[in-house]
């Protein structure tokens, strides 16, 4: 059902209109009570869309990871206090390229699913390993509950469930 802005490059994932509209609603909610935060949210959204809509190209793994960081901050603004995130330092990333959004789309799919399924806090840890990334999701307030581990490649073909 989600309407999406088409990706600019073959294989580039589209931007979710649902996500964009909800981030805009989040920014609107801060305008009166905290204008600086509203401005920050809009600036982050601008950076997010610029990365995705600048035109056909590939980006470095570090640029794509920065895009994921922007995405996570936007989700944290949408859901205050619900997302703990750990991202790999740029120095640990493989020297590879990706289409814009290749990693973010996989993280978004998994994180969105977890936020929908679990009402409390969600912890996500993205770690560099063997030329790709491992995404670990769990619930810090429910330590006994099983988590989920996904393999996320810088190329879409290398993404899948690990556990």
């Amino acid at each position, binding site marked *: *059902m*989600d309407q999406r802005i088409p990706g600019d490059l073959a294989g580039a994932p589209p931007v979710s*209109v649902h996500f*964009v509209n*909800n981030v805009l609603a989040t920014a609107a909610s*801060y305008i009166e009570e905290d204008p600086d935060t509203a401005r920050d949210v809009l600036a982050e959204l601008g950076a997010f869309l610029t990365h995705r809509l600048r035109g056909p190209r590939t980006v470095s793994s570090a640029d794509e990871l920065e895009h994921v960081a922007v995405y996570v901050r936007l989700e944290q603004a949408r859901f*205050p206090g619900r997302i703990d995130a750990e991202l790999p330092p740029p120095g640990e990333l493989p020297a590879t390229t990706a289409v814009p959004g290749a990693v973010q789309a996989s993280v978004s799919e998994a994180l969105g699913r977890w936020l*929908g399924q679990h009402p409390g806090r969600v912890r996500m840890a993205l770690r560099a390993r063997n030329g790709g990334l491992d995404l670990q999701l769990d619930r810090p307030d429910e330590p006994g509950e099983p988590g989920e581990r996904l393999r996320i490649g810088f190329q879409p073909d290398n993404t899948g469930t690990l556990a």
Partner: protein
Amino acid sequence: MSSGLAILAVDDEPRALTDIKRLLETSASVERVATATSAKEALVFLSGGRYDALFLDVAMPEIEGMALARLLRRFADPPAVVFLTGHPDAAVEAFEVQALDFLVKPVSRERLESALSRVEQHVRGAEAAKAGPTGDGAADAATGPDVVAVDNPKGGGKRLVRLETISFAQANGDYARIVCDDGRFLLRTPLSQLEKDWGASGFARVHRAYLVNLKHAVELRAQLNGTAVLIMRDDTEIPVARRNVAALRRRLHA
């Protein structure tokens, strides 16, 4: 309606809920706003008090807004539903569950006031209907739908079109081609059915192939052969069949 509206806003996104709550609270037509972060919580509110309308997020965990709207239709006296969403495509489904309106987040003040105006009309209609069949509610109940879902040539989905923006519908086999402010769209409904559905909204069958919104008509021009041509706001000329001319003239002069 003796006082302002009582609204229950439901959204799992706390910031979006904050935004719509603030907008609602600062509207002159709203007296009371309650908020819930899930459909379950909304049901608790509904069991404990009377609300004129729900402003309901479509995408929520567990019970989605659309499912809650379907559930509400089983209530004896359900509140009106206005959907809030970041999914523009959900409009078609909202139409199917008879939602009063459909707002895409973030909501503008103007759009919100338009939705609240519809809620007020709905509440007045419901109160009049309760008062008796001769009240205003009978007239409201006689009016047709306010929006229609048409095939969207861009993207292949559905698009909602307000009846008031439609200039005319033209028969196209078992389909109808509608011409409105936003363009031309195909509707999978025969003109004869549209005539029944839209008659109470000011549409008139002026020709075997044309159903016209008379609010968009500006001139009825008689022809020498007894037929006529109806001139629309955009200068489109619609043929009027000979047998319909007299009735149309009476209706336009009424």
